[in-house]
């Protein structure tokens, strides 16, 4: 009995080690590759310094970070009041909002970008030619992830009682949402924001095909001449995304870890 349990443990450990090798080796290889000195041999941190020294790359990083911030803000402004409203006053719209939010899972980014030309003619007309206009499409891209996170947080509180209490004490809708509901769904807002940031920083499809230079587009462009710098920047985005989600899983301890909240987006459409 004991020996069979031990064998099971060893077997599981061995399997885990194999998976770890497959998944961690390429990451190690990136670290190794990006610090290699191709000309003189030995090690150099030049590729990593290029993250701030290379003008084009540095500007792209700033653009992507700004896009991440704007997307999070626009997503929250659009989604939080709407989701609260359909729960409180317009339950007939709830299915519709859910359907629309999860729709980007079925309509690939590649398809959106193909059909986007006419819309963007107008966007450019109103807002000018700037990579930051990608905020609008990116907000659509993050909808499924954000919806799931916020939905989970809203399901965990007694929204109706909270809102009625606030309203009966004389609070208007703005006060009710901002000062009563939002503090109670903080974990959901945080996870929606973190996941959105990770999505935006990793986005390539739409930016590249509509001709804007965000971080990933520049990484690919640089990769044609300077491999190590591209590999360094790629590893940096992966590590940054990993840290975001790991922090998230620690912050939302006991509720829904970061992985699960993304899982719920894809896997558990019917679950609260």
């Amino acid at each position, binding site marked *: 009995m004991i020996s069979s349990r031990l064998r099971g443990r060893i077997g*599981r450990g061995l*399997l*885990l080690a194999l*998976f770890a090798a497959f998944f961690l*080796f*390429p990451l190690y*290889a*990136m670290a190794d*590759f990006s610090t290699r000195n191709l000309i003189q041999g030995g090690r150099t941190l030049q590729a990593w310094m290029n993250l701030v020294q290379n003008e084009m790359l540095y500007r792209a990083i700033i653009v992507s970070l700004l896009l991440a911030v704007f997307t999070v803000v626009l997503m929250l402004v*659009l989604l939080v009041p*709407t989701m609260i*409203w359909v*729960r*409180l006053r*317009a*339950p*007939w719209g709830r299915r519709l*909002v859910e359907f629309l939010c999860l*729709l980007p899972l*079925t*309509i*690939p*980014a*590649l*398809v*959106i970008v*193909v*059909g986007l*030309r*006419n*819309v963007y003619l107008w966007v450019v007309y109103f807002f000018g030619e700037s990579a930051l206009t990608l905020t*609008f499409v990116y907000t*659509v891209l993050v909808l499924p992830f954000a919806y799931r996170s916020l939905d989970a947080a809203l399901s965990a509180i007694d929204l109706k009682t909270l809102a009625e209490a606030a309203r009966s004490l004389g609070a208007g809708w703005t006060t009710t949402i901002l000062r009563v509901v939002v503090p109670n769904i903080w974990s959901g807002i945080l996870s929606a924001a973190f996941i959105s940031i*990770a999505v935006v920083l*990793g*986005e*390539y*499809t739409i930016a590249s*095909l509509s001709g804007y230079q965000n971080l*990933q587009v520049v990484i690919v462009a640089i*990769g044609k001449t300077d491999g190590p710098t*591209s*590999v360094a920047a790629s*590893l940096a985005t*992966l590590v940054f995304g*990993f840290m975001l989600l790991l922090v998230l*899983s*620690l912050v939302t*301890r006991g509720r829904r*870890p*970061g*992985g*699960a909240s*993304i*899982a719920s987006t*894809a*896997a*558990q459409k*019917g*679950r609260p």
Partner: protein
Amino acid sequence: MAPAKRLRGPMSPAKRLRGPMSPAKRLREALPLVPFLVFVGIFLIIPTVTVIVSAFYRDGQFSLQRLGLLFSGTALAALWKSVVLSATTAGIGAVFGAVLSWLVVNSSPTSPLRRVVLSLCSVLAQFGGVALAFAFLATIGLNGVLTIWVRERFGFDLAGAGWLYSLRGLILVYTYFQIPLMVIVFTPALEGLRAEWREAAVSLGASRWQYWREVGFPLLTPAFLGSALLLFANAFAAYATAAALVSQGSPIVPLLIRAALTSEVVLGQSGFAYALALEMVVVVALVMIAYNLLVRRTSRWLQ
């Protein structure tokens, strides 16, 4: 599901307002939804409708010419390769991903191992894109770390003939995000298997293997197949990794869309991108519908 039901309960606003509900009231209820609906309408619905309509219309005339291009040799070859790539990586991803999530579920929900694995899986599955292409270039590309190591040790060229840029290379790189995606979507189903069920089976005299064969596997089958379908759709629609890896040629549908978008004039087939995008929507939508049907079966006992 539960909150939705609660909202429709006897005290729900919908019920209270039903009956003598004035149009003004209805309008006031709907008004706060307008910004969201308009936004989604402009940036999601209009592009999608544009794709569908433009695939059927040419210069304002109904025409099947663009759809006809889908049956050209190039398009069919790309579709076939896309299907092979998606099916292969969905199969590999589903099997290995299920094993990995079984390993993860065996650890406690708050263990660091689980947090790290799930966070890493989320990053690789959802946000990797371009970075994954570079990860493999750094590993088994022409000057990759593993390539050099193997060359020095065994005198064997891993990067031989640039296979990393071919379909086989794409299959390898895609498994790097398909396995993690499987872990993320399949772990909740595995967690849904209750310990009581195994205890019940064991107390009735079942062996470990019997429990899995008679109880575990049959319960997990719909979730497993559903997840595999999701992986298929995911690979079929993935663009960034392939685009960063393969800069010339367009072996698969997403890359053919890129070619059609960026060099329409050269191809002399304007609107080809619309037809290809429609093809992609149809494939992904069909797969997702099947996925939803399977998931609905699972969610019955998962709750």
